[in-house]
């Protein structure tokens, strides 16, 4: 039973990663693409990490996946925020030159 739940979580995560990758091509501006990378991919990583915990059932795996989860959920949006802020600054400086 638990194997079936693990497999379904893995397949759902792969499908969500595919949707996020299509979104990074089809969205029009940078801010929408950043939204795809931070939110959708983080959700897919969460599903993968839950699947790994269900598959291994060890304390060491739980600790390492918690660290990975915090990096993906807390630090990756910080990086995306910094990138969008710099891109806004670059756009404003281009407008000044014109």
């Amino acid at each position, binding site marked *: *039973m638990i*194997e*079936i739940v*693990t*497999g*379904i979580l*893995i*397949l759902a*995560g*792969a*499908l969500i*990663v*595919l949707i*996020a*990758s*299509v979104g*990074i*091509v089809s969205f029009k501006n*940078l801010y929408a*693409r*950043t939204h*795809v*990378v931070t939110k959708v*991919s983080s959700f*897919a*990583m969460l599903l*993968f*990490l839950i*699947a*790994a915990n269900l*598959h*291994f059932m*060890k304390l*060491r*795996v739980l600790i*390492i*996946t918690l*660290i*990975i989860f915090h*990096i*993906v959920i807390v*630090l*990756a949006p*910080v*990086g*995306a925020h*910094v*990138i*969008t*802020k*710099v*891109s806004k*600054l*670059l756009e404003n*400086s281009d407008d000044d030159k014109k």
Partner: protein
Amino acid sequence: MSESNFVEIAAQTAMWVMTLSLLFPLYRLFRGPSLPDRVVALDQIGMIVVGIIICDSIFSNDSMLLDVVLIIAFMLVFGSIIIAHYLHKRQSEL
């Protein structure tokens, strides 16, 4: 079809799907209009690689591969922050 076989098949299918979905951010990496677009595409490529390695650790039953995932996620985040820092520095020098 036994139940443990299902996890292996699911992990293999997920690895194939994610390898194919690497093509979309690669397109954005080559065709991106500006430099921040390429940084975001690189972020997405790193996320997909993290997912592939997690599926590989489930497929090959080796929990040691999750350490690799930890280091890759860390490098990914700080890489994009440092690229943003240098973009900001170059922009303020102009």
